[in-house]
């Protein structure tokens, strides 16, 4: 019966016009693909549901064991012992469920979650438990995995548990071609390397993307006891432009005045963007000695650098170049140039009190508007 109907269908298909044959093939492919897609969604959801169900049973058990036997165990608070020397009652975790890989992963995730919330003696005991239960070996396996997502997960786990990783393992990853892995490795390196957290700047050939810079900046500025080097070394020697640009921002953040000579040298670079970053850095460091050079080079610069020079003169606010700023404000044709010149005049107004009023009285209506805009302390640019 089935073979009969199949042969009829096959016969119909074989002798159908070509266009119908093509359409039928497409229909079959579409139906099969849709069914496969639905099936894979169903399988993924079922796995997720099963995982949630298993975790909902396991997590209270982990919490209870952890709180009862580790975190609230007064007998573990021996002031004569270092936290890593305390022998924890790990036998309470010696249960069949913890032999399973998923349960051990759930345990690692929970420990990380606890460590995000508590530090001090409790935080040390959580780390101690992670080591004594040999969960670090699970993480190390992930670190050796060929899959990049496993490596990222391992780096996250090691960083959260404040576990050191050998330079030979982590440094190559800071230069990985995979963006996610590269970022995770750099973050981990800064967090875990207490002596030379910026060593990867030396080997970085891949660019630091804007978002990487934001993340790195957050880590650098929030990590405690981090050894801050003189960033001028990378300004001078690094061939990676994004590293130089990032170091300029760090020089400003840490107010490293010792780096000023290296930044001044960078004014001769052929890269306009780097030069603009260098001018921005000098302005924010309020380097008065560089004002003359900035004004001298102004006319030969592209717009981007000219705007940074105007901003720098406003930030340094020495009052020496107010005539130059006035000239640019009155005669420049570019709106942005006039806007930044006006803002810098306002910042320098202590040196020429009558000038602002004179400009307001004599300026064109558009320039008057720019001046009033610049005088508003709530508007920052």
């Amino acid at each position, binding site marked *: 019966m089935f073979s009969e109907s199949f042969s009829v269908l096959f016969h119909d298909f074989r002798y159908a016009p070509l266009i119908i044959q093509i359409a039928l093939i497409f229909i079959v492919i579409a139906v099969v693909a849709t069914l496969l897609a639905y099936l894979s969604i169903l399988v993924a959801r079922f796995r997720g549901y099963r995982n949630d169900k298993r975790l909902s049973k396991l997590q209270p058990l982990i*919490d209870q064991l952890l*709180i009862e036997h580790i*975190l*609230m165990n007064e007998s573990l608070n021996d002031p004569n012992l270092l936290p890593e020397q305390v022998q924890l009652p790990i036998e309470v975790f010696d249960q069949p469920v913890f032999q399973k890989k998923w349960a051990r992963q759930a345990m690692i995730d*929970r420990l990380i*979650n*606890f*460590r*995000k*919330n*508590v*530090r*001090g003696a*409790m*935080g040390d005991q959580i780390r101690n438990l992670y080591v004594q239960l040999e969960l670090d070996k699970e993480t190390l396996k992930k670190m050796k995995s060929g899959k990049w997502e496993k490596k990222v997960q391992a780096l996250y786990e090691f960083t959260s548990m404040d576990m050191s990783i050998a330079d030979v393992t982590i440094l190559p990853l800071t230069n990985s071609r995979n963006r996610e892995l590269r970022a995770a490795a750099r973050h981990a390196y800064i967090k875990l390397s207490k002596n030379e957290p910026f060593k990867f700047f030396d080997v970085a050939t891949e660019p630091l993307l804007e978002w990487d810079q934001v993340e790195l900046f957050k880590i650098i500025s*929030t990590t405690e006891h981090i050894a801050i080097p003189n960033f001028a070394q990378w300004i001078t020697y690094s061939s990676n432009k994004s590293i130089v640009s990032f170091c300029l921002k760090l020089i400003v953040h840490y107010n490293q005045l010792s780096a000023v000579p290296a930044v001044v040298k960078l004014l001769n670079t052929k890269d306009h963007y780097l030069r603009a970053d260098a001018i921005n850095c000098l302005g924010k460091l309020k380097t008065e000695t560089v004002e003359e050079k900035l004004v001298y080079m102004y006319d030969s610069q592209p717009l981007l650098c000219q705007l940074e020079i105007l901003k720098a003169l406003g930030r340094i606010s020495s009052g020496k170049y107010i005539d130059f700023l006035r000239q640019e404000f009155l005669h420049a044709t570019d709106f942005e140039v006039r806007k930044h010149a006006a803002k810098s005049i306002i910042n320098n107004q202590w040196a020429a009190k009558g000038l602002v009023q004179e400009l307001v009285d004599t300026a064109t209506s558009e320039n008057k508007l720019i001046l009033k805009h610049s005088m508003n302390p709530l508007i920052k640019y």
Partner: protein
Amino acid sequence: MSKILLVEDDEVMPKIMERILHREEYQIDHVTNGKEAFAKLEETNFGYDLIITDIMMPYANGFEILSKVKNRPDAKPIPVIIVSNAGNEDMILEGFKLGADDFLKKPVIPGELLIRVKRLLMQYR
């Protein structure tokens, strides 16, 4: 017995806090978001001796709870401690501007939290 309202959407933190504070015989009511916190405060007529709140939570954030609690001119003042992951300068200053009595950045040291809770409860008694 002092009554503490804990507003925290993380699952682990309340467990730790309950253990630390319950041991000292504080009664803790835990809610997981700003909306529930408002409901609890209305329901009890602001009958708490201390509020411990996170900042970033669904429905209403910690700052909204803080300003509601602190803007009751003729009512009994309730101390508020902010416990949050967000430790940037702006957040901390905003918290204190709105009247927070203390700010603790996560991860917290349990002993420190306990001492700060005790100190504030004594101060407002």
